[in-house]
């Protein structure tokens, strides 16, 4: 999307707000999950489940944007992407997302959806103002499986979170970080200017 002299808008305001809300919630969820395991004692359960519910709402918002505003095509790896990946060629400079970003997105999406599904089930084990706990909905063995999947996905999320921060602060990616803050993509604006666009 072109924004004339102001540069190319890479991420619109609702998408930027979604990204930073998601980042805040992921940090809250990881902190409330793992700090108690590291010996930091506090009443983490209410913060964790409320953050989880907000996280689910954020994902629904993103799905709505992805399906009705952006479309899925921009995030789908193409045959050209995969050839570039195998050949280690430079990514298509015209594409909004390169193949690494697309693969990262779908990997994290799978992990987050698994966390939401298992976390949603685990809400049956706590009392909230909205419902009473009912752990009998699953057997002990099934609960073990739910907890194991939730834990494994949480460990994977730590891995992806660290990589995401690392790639965001690389010098060659800082324009992407800036675009997630202010929306405009300075690199594309400069590239457009050089082409006389």
């Amino acid at each position, binding site marked *: 999307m072109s924004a004339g002299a102001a540069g190319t808008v890479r991420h619109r305001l609702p998408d930027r707000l979604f990204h930073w809300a998601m980042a805040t919630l992921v940090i809250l969820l990881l902190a409330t999950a*793992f700090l108690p*395991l590291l010996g930091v004692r506090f009443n983490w359960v209410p913060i964790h489940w409320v953050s989880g519910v907000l996280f689910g709402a954020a994902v629904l918002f993103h799905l709505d944007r992805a399906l009705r505003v952006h479309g899925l095509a921009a995030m789908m790896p193409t045959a050209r992407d995969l050839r570039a990946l195998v050949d280690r060629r430079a990514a298509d400079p015209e594409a909004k997302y390169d193949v690494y970003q697309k693969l990262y997105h779908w990997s994290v999406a799978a992990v987050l959806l698994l966390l939401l599904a298992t976390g949603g089930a685990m809400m049956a084990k706590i009392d909230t103002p909205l419902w009473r706990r009912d752990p009998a909905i699953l057997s002990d063995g099934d609960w073990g*499986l739910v907890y194991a999947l939730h834990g*494994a996905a949480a*460990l994977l999320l*730590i891995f992806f979170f*660290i*990589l995401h921060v690392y790639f965001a602060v690389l010098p060659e990616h800082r324009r992407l970080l800036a675009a997630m803050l202010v929306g405009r993509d300075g690199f594309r604006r400069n590239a457009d200017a050089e082409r006389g666009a």
Partner: protein
Amino acid sequence: MEIFRYSKNAWGQEILLGMSWDLLWLPVAAAAACIAGHQLLRRVPRRR
């Protein structure tokens, strides 16, 4: 190193509790390895 945590239920049967939290270092170490690998890889020139 255990991958899962187990307990015994009221009938003495072993039941799965979840992932072992001894693995907490693993995603951090894996991410550190990927970062180190990427730092090495980006020094190799790309084909154009």
